């Protein structure tokens, strides 16, 4: 099922969903004949493994392939597919019925297939497993309380429920489940899927939602509660493929079909466990499975850690430098304008202030309908974030120049432009530089979120690390990000020697 990335925030879903109509209407039909087949996957391990399987199959068929791993939630992937940002991704039939096409009331595989055609999307046959929602609790505790099915929960109103945020909100999630089974529990909270398992283990919650192919079920010794009233729908895994891919890469489309009906629930759970618990790279997990099942030998392209970090650094630096330079070019004139025209200035400061209050993830997601996925929307969001500190500090720096100094410059007979250039900007430079520094440091941190929408950077290993509960991977992103922030600080301390005139630095020491 896994409509959305499990760790994706629910408002992220809401935000994209509101905009999805625009996405559809804005999507350009750009021919991308020579580009590799682009495969997307959602922000959870099973989807990433399926994405790796597809990538390996496409490569084995002779086409080049690019896997945009853990892009985000359902809406991000679906919109990216319809817009042509990606060519295919793994999806679940239940998700199509219940969420993506919920307004069309489509039921059944054949109806789904024909409806998807109108979106220019082809749905494969089921891959073989049904990854449905289930409720689970620690086996020992379930046994002690005599709970086997969801109906049994009615007898224990004191149980604490911890559900993924998405499950809490979806009509076919907790609200529907509670109504169907008349569940009395009051202590119900939303949390991240990966934290839910740890919550069970630490006995801070008793029951959580999970997926029937979850790697953690065996690992944490969890009892799945029987859905005795058949509440949860079927979530068969399928490929969703753009119809036009067949024209561009027929061999790839044919290769994808080789996996139809080949992955059963236990095989999928085993792959999930290898990736998540044994920490085997998904590429390897997929390659091993393809060899065992189809006899296919896949050369996996694994990068060493150093090469990986270097690539992330390059991506991250690109995000930061492009967005920050653009922000500087816009914010500096805006700050000057704000200082020259106080009334307009108040408006400008308020406007950039409002931008700053938009949660970073929301801003990133808002950008998707306009700029698609990847680096451009991330750069745009970071650009908007970087405006306020620079505008505010430029304004403050210029407004803070003592009146006698401003008048002295004017009395000399300098033109307004010359006053700005020779007197006012140099005097405001410490404040402006401090603003740029603030922007840069915020930017370095916020850029890690860019990975959520496929922009890469240090956020990528952090995302993967959170998903796999792999501290090493998290550190692989977090440590360089922190170092970069420190480096930016140092860089600006150095820049002060160049930017801030010596007379002012001397004055400050006094």
């Amino acid at each position, binding site marked *: 099922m896994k409509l959305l990335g499990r760790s994706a925030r629910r408002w992220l879903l809401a935000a994209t969903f509101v905009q999805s109509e625009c996405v559809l209407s804005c999507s350009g039909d750009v021919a991308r004949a020579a580009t590799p087949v682009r495969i997307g996957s959602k922000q959870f391990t099973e989807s990433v493994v399926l994405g790796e399987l597809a990538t390996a199959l496409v490569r084995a068929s002779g086409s080049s392939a690019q896997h945009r791993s853990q892009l985000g939630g359902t809406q991000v992937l679906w919109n990216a597919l319809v817009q042509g940002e990606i060519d295919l991704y793994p999806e679940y039939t239940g998700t199509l019925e219940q969420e993506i096409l919920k307004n069309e009331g489509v039921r059944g595989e054949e109806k789904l297939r024909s409806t998807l055609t109108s979106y220019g999307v082809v749905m494969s046959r089921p891959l073989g497993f049904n990854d449905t929602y289930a409720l689970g609790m620690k086996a020992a505790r379930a046994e002690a309380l005599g709970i086997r099915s969801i109906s049994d929960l009615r007898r224990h109103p004191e149980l604490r429920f911890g559900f993924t945020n998405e499950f809490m909100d979806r009509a076919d999630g907790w609200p529907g489940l509670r109504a169907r089974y008349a569940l009395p529990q009051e202590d119900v909270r939303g949390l991240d899927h990966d934290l839910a398992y740890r919550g069970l283990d630490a006995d801070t919650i008793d029951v959580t939602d999970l997926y029937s192919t979850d790697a953690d079920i065996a690992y944490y010794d969890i009892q799945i509660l029987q859905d005795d009233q058949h509440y949860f729908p079927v979530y068969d895994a399928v490929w969703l493929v753009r119809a036009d891919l067949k024209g561009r890469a027929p061999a790839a489309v044919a290769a994808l079909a080789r996996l139809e009906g080949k992955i059963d629930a236990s095989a999928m759970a085993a792959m999930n466990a290898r990736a998540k618990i044994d920490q085997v790279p998904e590429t390897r997990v997929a390659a091993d499975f393809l060899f065992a099942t189809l006899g296919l030998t896949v050369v996996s392209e694994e990068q060493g850690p150093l090469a990986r970090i270097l690539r992330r650094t390059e991506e991250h630096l690109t995000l930061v430098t492009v967005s920050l330079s653009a922000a500087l070019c816009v914010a500096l004139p805006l700050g000057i304008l704000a200082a020259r025209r106080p009334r307009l200035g108040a408006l400008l400061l308020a406007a950039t202030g409002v931008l700053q209050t938009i949660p970073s993830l929301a801003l990133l997601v808002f950008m998707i309908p306009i700029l698609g996925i990847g680096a451009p929307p991330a750069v745009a969001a970071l650009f908007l974030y970087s405006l306020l500190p620079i505008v505010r500090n430029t304004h403050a720096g210029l407004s803070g120049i003592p009146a*006698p*100094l401003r*008048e*002295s*410059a*004017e*009395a*000399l*007979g*300098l*033109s307004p432009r*010359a006053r700005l250039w*020779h*007197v006012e900007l*140099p*005097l405001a*430079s410490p404040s402006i530089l401090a603003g740029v520094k603030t922007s840069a440091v915020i930017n370095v941190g916020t850029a890690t979120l860019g990975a959520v929408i496929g922009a890469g950077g240090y956020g990528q290993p952090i995302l993967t690390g959170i998903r796999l509960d792999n501290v090493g991977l998290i550190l692989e992103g977090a440590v360089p990000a922190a170092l970069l922030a420190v480096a930016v600080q140092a860089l600006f301390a150095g820049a002060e020697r160049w930017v801030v*005139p*010596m*007379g*002012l630095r*001397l*004055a400050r020491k*006094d």
Partner: protein
Amino acid sequence: MLSLRGVSKSFGQTPAVRDVDLDFAPHTTTVLIGASGCGKSTLLRLALGLVTPDRGSVHLDGERLDAESAPALRRRMGYVIQDGGLFPHLDARRNVSLMARYLGWEGERTRQRVQDLARLARFPESALDRFPVQLSGGQRQRVGLMRALLLDPEVLLLDEPLAALDPLVRAELQDALREIFRDLGKTVVLVTHDLAEAAFFGDRIVLLRDGSVEQSGTLRDLVEAPADEYVSRFVRAQRTLHIVGAEAAR
């Protein structure tokens, strides 16, 4: 000749200058004096166009000062404020020569001019490369004067130039300034609140009260023929200080 014609200016509801007519004859030194808030500084800023009058006009040699003519006219006037008003990010030399750079003077011409001015203002040439924060109060004031004189203006406007200085430095600078005024033959308008300083510099003293001219004349006129009770009180107040000082010394 610098002239103010029927000039009035209010800040919000508060009138700062009311209907002032003043002519400043070439080569003379006029001292504007009065209590704080009497409008003497505002008058200087009006003369430079830093403040736009609500009514009336300012003229320099018959040319009316307005937004368009201001930049050119300002280059014919030098302005010195308390503590020099130096730009802290520029060293003394660059403070003085800022306008020369703006007007595209040749390096040698600029260097020569700065050197001449340093000699005139008795400012040590070795200190030209120091920043304002590295200079003494008296030195900053000299640099401010040099900056005002760079373009050899006809008019020199000084707003309490010596107020921030200790008595010894102040006396020294007073001598220097009077000498410079006399040698250069500028039209000088100097604002002070100290009658002794006014008498020291001024060919003419203009006593202001609440934005209007109360009396204009020499010190002798003010002392011997005060226009009204306020003038005699103002003069007496300054004398009283001397008397108190003298008695205390005794």
